[in-house]
């Protein structure tokens, strides 16, 4: 089972909810990383502690809860495909929160409207993160 390292492959400072909040936001991680990998259907691990200091709940809710909230996958499917891993036991808190946000999200309760175009137009989002790593998970 392959492991996705958020801190090393996506951003060492994952923050913000939408594209308009800058690179490394929750919406970007959900739309361009998690969604395509989950759609491929192969189970994978997500390492949350390597090269990351912490997460705001806005990022985690948008990235993980958004998958259910926007009706991409139901929570059972997601939980059957991902395994949140960490070595630093301090990050158990964030792992528990991820599963909690998945459980609390209501399936397909909000239509998704991207903020990417606005963010690009307003030059708040630079698309600086290379996301080619997702090919090895597909």
């Amino acid at each position, binding site marked *: 089972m392959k492991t996705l390292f958020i801190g090393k492959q996506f951003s060492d400072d994952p923050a913000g909810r939408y594209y308009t909040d800058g690179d490394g936001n929750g919406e970007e991680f959900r739309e361009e990383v998690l969604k395509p990998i989950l759609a491929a259907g192969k189970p994978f691990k997500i390492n949350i502690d390597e090269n990351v200091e912490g997460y705001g*709940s806005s990022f985690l809710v948008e990235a993980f809860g958004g998958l259910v909230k926007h009706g991409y996958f139901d929570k059972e499917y997601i939980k059957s495909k991902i395994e949140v891993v960490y070595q630093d036991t301090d990050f158990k808190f964030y792992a528990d929160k991820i599963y909690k946000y998945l459980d609390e999200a209501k399936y397909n309760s909000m239509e998704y409207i991207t903020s990417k175009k606005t963010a690009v137009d307003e030059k708040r989002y630079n698309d600086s993160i290379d996301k080619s790593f997702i090919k090895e998970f597909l």
Partner: protein
Amino acid sequence: MSYTEVTNTQDVDKTLESLINENHENEIITAVDSFTDLKHYIEEELCGLNENISNLNTASVEIKRNMIDKEHYQLFINKLDTSFIQYSENQKENTSKLVEAISSVPDGSYSLAITSGVIGAIVAAIAALSVNYFYQKYINNENKKSHFADISISILDSFEKTAILYWIEDKIADEKAHNYNSKEMERLELKIKSEFTVLRASLGEFLSSLSEKEFQQKTKVTEIIEKVYDLATGSSFETVDKKCDKSIAAKISTQTARLKSILLKFSQHTK
């Protein structure tokens, strides 16, 4: 002359002879009657005497039998005495042998005695060390609990100030605006995340020192810290156009106060 005056045979013979010689018929008849009465009397007396003799015989037989029984018992008691004395002597001898056996080390087993002594000493030392270890562990745990409760309160104070400061102001990203504060807001965002990390680590240590009896406090602290995290870093946290939200600021203040009230109980422990 009355028959009661006749006391022995010679007297009777003499009396009769004198009466015959003197030819006193009536007196002879009276005498004969007296003799008859005397005979009856003597016979009755003899009868009683025989009865008494018979009783005496019976009594003597009884006495004799009792004497035999007494002798028999005396003999038995003597035998018992002898046996008791023998038993007592044996008992004394056996007891002294037993005491000697217990208190002395058998030949050839001095190494065993030394080993037993050493093992005894080691066991006693281990017991003393264990008691000391567990007592020290208990004291350390109490100190740890108090220490991390104090530290957590201090970090919580700072975290509360930072979070409230962040949520009672809009984030102004327009650099041309007179109240531009995007950089200051980003600084507060970083501070909120880092202080929360330290707070969580400190509370984690504090929670690990709580006993099973303090399960309720453990659950409460965990619940509150999750709420504080969701409040302080949720909603539009880290967004470009984050708006002032006094409701979030108030909730953060309430939850941190609840957390402090729990921590204060432990920081004042003086065990």
